[in-house]
């Protein structure tokens, strides 16, 4: 079942390649094949969700095939409350990305093959239960993404793609170093996640070194300030579907990795570093938000907002309570959907007007000659991103703030300032581009086809639905995060350490009650 999610896209991609060698495959045909495969894997992920038991701890639907025993690399897949929502999100967004791809795209076969391989790599990384396997999938996903930016990107695609490749390759090397270090120092010859988690803990100093390596590695991928500069460039040059996948799901590989491997494998070091991580989260949030305010390019603005929103995630993970980790997963889903929505809409605007420059765009809400529906969806998207209740972003952010406040009060409050700043830059975007009067230059825009609106409408519907019924997003994870925390008693130390920081916010009487 899990292998199907990974290998059906690979087989589909292989089929497409072979078919294109034998006969001439038309653009339409390869598009339909890719869509069919994405639909199948999305359905499988939904079935997986329906069959998932959120009451039991540990991995479900595990698969194990011995591979290279000598180095402890085995083909080991499993799904738990952390990975399930992300796998479903991945399959959904891949479908959306394929659907929203340009129907007249050049070199269609290669394009769809790469998208399918990307889907397989990401799903594999979320499902991998062997750290080396995770690393392999993590690297595999990199190649198609690099090519997708470098071949179908904007004018500066080579620069952006190479920058992306160098950063992410560096990220991979550091991650591998951390994993190898862990195995060597513990004397393990098995890279299975479960085995590594339950070995005798390393000295805290060693743990800290390895954790910092891992944090830098995955901080590049996430991205966290100051390792973020590849992201805006990559987004600006990438085509819309690639941006959707990059922001929607690929960034989550970084945060997922930090959560599962950073927190899961080095709990003691994590507990020590937690206050520092919370501070780092604040820097990321404020830095990303201020950068977004300074942007004139819509896509860059959305890209920097991702940097800010990833900071909330780091805060939630630093607090490391069962609730805050549920909140982290919720924020991954929320940000995945919302940023996908925003990139889809910016993509339509760019396609119709030929620009993303906020100094040029104005009055796009105009009912007859403008883009009124895209504009209305944009208002919804930016409100969701700014954390207005009734949409999915609010639930995730409220959960994060609620669960982190008692542990890192000051940092949490500073991060909340970030939600206010989100309203600042996104309102600048909407008011500049969509309000006002259409200029002569922008009038007579081509009509937006139904097929161009549909992906955004679907994602927007999900954003609103999960905002009112967040249970569908939250119910999978709690058992897993509780197990993750309670099996690492050292994580409890974060809380008392933090209370000392509170400087009298909670009186002594309250403390003794805990």
């Amino acid at each position: 079942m899990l292998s199907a999610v990974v290998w059906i896209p690979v087989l589909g991609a292989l089929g497409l390649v072979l078919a294109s060698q034998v006969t001439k495959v038309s653009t339409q045909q390869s598009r339909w094949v890719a869509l069919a495969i994405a639909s199948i894997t999305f359905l499988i992920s939904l079935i997986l969700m329906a069959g998932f038991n959120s009451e039991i701890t540990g991995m479900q639907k595990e698969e194990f095939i011995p591979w290279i025993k000598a180095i402890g690399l085995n083909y080991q897949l499993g799904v738990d409350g952390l990975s399930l929502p992300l796998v479903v999100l991945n399959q959904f967004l891949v479908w959306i990305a394929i659907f929203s791809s340009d129907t007249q795209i050049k070199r269609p076969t290669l394009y769809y093959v790469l998208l399918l391989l990307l889907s397989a790599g990401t799903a594999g990384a979320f499902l991998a239960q062997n750290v080396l396997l995770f690393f392999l999938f993590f690297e595999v996903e990199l190649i198609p993404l690099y090519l997708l930016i470098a071949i179908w990107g904007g004018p500066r695609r080579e620069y952006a793609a190479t920058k992306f490749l160098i950063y992410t390759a560096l990220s991979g090397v550091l991650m591998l170093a951390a994993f190898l270090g862990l195995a060597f120092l513990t004397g393990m010859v098995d890279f299975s996640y479960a085995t590594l988690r339950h070995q005798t803990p390393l000295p805290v100093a060693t743990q800290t070194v390895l954790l910092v390596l891992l944090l830098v590695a995955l901080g590049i991928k996430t991205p966290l300030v100051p390792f973020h500069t590849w992201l805006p460039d990559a987004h600006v040059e990438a085509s819309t579907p690639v941006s959707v996948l990059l922001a929607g799901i690929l960034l989550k590989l970084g945060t997922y990795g930090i959560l599962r491997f950073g927190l899961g494998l080095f709990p003691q070091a994590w507990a020590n570093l937690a206050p520092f991580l919370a501070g780092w989260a604040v820097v990321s949030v404020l830095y990303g938000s201020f950068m977004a305010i300074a942007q004139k390019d819509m896509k860059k603005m959305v890209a920097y907002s991702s940097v800010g929103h990833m900071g909330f995630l780091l805060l939630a993970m630093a607090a490391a309570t069962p609730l805050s980790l549920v909140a982290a997963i919720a924020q991954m889903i929320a940000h995945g959907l919302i940023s996908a929505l925003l990139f889809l809409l910016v993509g339509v605007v760019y396609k119709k007007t030929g620009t993303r420059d906020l100094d040029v765009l104005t009055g796009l809400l105009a009912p007859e000659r403008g883009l009124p529906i895209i504009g209305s969806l944009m208002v919804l998207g930016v409100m969701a991103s700014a954390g207005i209740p009734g949409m999915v972003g609010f639930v995730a952010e409220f959960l994060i703030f609620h669960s982190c406040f008692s542990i890192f009060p000051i940092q949490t409050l500073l991060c909340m300032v970030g939600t206010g700043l989100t309203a600042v830059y996104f309102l600048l975007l909407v008011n500049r581009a969509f309000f006002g009067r259409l200029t002569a230059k922008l009038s007579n825009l081509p009509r937006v086809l139904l097929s161009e609106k549909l992906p955004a409408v679907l994602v927007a519907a999900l954003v609103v639905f999960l905002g009112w019924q967040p249970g569908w997003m939250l119910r999978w994870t709690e058992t897993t995060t509780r197990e993750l925390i309670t099996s690492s008693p050292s994580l409890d130390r974060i809380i008392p350490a933090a209370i000392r920081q509170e400087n009298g916010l909670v009186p002594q009487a309250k403390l003794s009650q805990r």
Partner: protein
Amino acid sequence: MTLFATETLWWIPCYGLVGVLFTLPWAIGSVKNTGPRPAAYFNFLMTALALIHALILWQTSWTHPAYNIEFVWFEVGNWHQDIILRASIESLGGVFLITLLSFLAQLFALGYMEKDWGLARFFALMGFFEGAMCGLALSDSLLASYGLLELLTLSTYLLVGFWYAQPLVVTAARDAFWTKRLGDMLLLMGVVALSTLAPSLNFTDLTAWAHTDGKLLSPTAITLLGFALIAGPIGKCAQFPLNLWLDEAMEGPNPASIMRNSVVVACGAYVLIRVQPILALSPVVMGTLVFIGALTAIGASWVALAQVDLKRAFCHSTSAYLGLVFIAVGLQQSEVALLLLFAHTLAKALLFMSIGSVIFTTSTQDLRELGGLGSRMPATTTAYLVAASGLVAGLPLGSFWALGAFGQILATAPFLLIILLSVNGLTAFNLGRVFGLVFMGPAQPKTRRAPEVPWTMAVPLVALTILTLLVPLFILQGHFTSLTLSLPVLLLVVSGVLGGWFGYQGTRVPLVLPKTQLREQIQDFLAHDLYVERFYRATIVTWISWGAKITAWLDRHIVDGAVNLVGLGSLVSGQFLRYANSGQSQTYVLTIVVGVIVVGVVELIITLH
């Protein structure tokens, strides 16, 4: 009957939302051949149903005890958030008032917005507005109330931005959202803090907590918490320093202004009253409430006098009146605060409806272009006079009783009593001034041929006039107040009558004041809203724009610069890997795939050894 009531309470906020959903096909333009009317009528019908439903429930509540209905919104493990709706006389009365005003404003809008192409969208937004406010009146949980306040912020943004093609509207909508959002953000900080400190976010539990464990909190913590909690209502009720959005919001359509100046601001005050037990833990917070309320009441009353825009002249008086409510809450006089809100709501709604009629027939809202409408628009003039009398203590209409009750309480606090008297006098002066300028005096080019409004607008106007006249009966029957013939009450009447008289006379016999520089400066100071906007520019706007500039500089020169420093930049921008342009892509794909695999294998081999 009771079963019906308990099971259908949650329908009330949903009527508006059903209307919104139904309107979508018209609003997005997929139904065009019918015009927007059907959608508007459907929304109107939904509001009518909500009104009838609310009336039935309210009547039931007079004979039955209050009750709650609870829904679990979401749960994680054993931690859950509930949405609680409380059905009591007060909450259902609020719902009735909201749906009634929404009904009348929508009826009014059928005429006012008749020729607007966005009619369907407007009615959908009104439905959304109404739904959110009904939810707020019923909500018994701080989290839900916070959420609904945010939804009100959103719908204010959309309603103010309704005519989004006009340049002034663009900034007005943006500023309204930012200002309210700032308040909401601070309120959210308070909500988050309370969610970890108190056992739950239900108002009942919060009140209980405030009387027990809440007292154990350190004074600093409780004061900070209180400041966070009052920030939201300060923004929502347009109190200093978050008051300017209401002035700018007057760029929006008038039927929405009717709602905004009456019930929407009251919603903010209502939340303030609900959290009052927590605020009461900190004397500093209560003092701040009184201070902010007094400052806004006096400042806004003066600013109103210097406005030449018909709508702006009265929106500042809304801020002033809500300032009085803030003072009442700060003095722990919640009942008087509610009474003030109630008396203000209907009268202010009527006032905005009557000036809406004036704007509709004359197509201008500049006081200098109006005049002589009294004989031409009798129904509108009557409505204006009733609304004016209902707003100030003079004739025994609504505000006479509310302000009188407040005056009796303030008898021991002479300073605050003076503020109350000045607000009353200045408001009366302003109402008299506008009356003289708009309805009396010689007719002007734009008013010479002004007819009375058509029936769709006259019916709600007259209906609301009658309701405003009935407010004192309701207040007296409910025994909400008992006035004695005391000095504060007398002073209030005198200040109201004199203020109105001088305001009116001032327009007939222009005061011969020497045109000095000082007078000009004072006028400018008031006309520019006490330069609050400059204050914003000098503080928060500057901070944020400098924050953005500094970060952008850092990002460009330090963070990205470091990348270039280590040589990655030249590697990246150089002639490295030039295959993306070539047609022979497959070969290159193969090359890089092979390359990565080789690197991977080498890494694994190193691992093995």
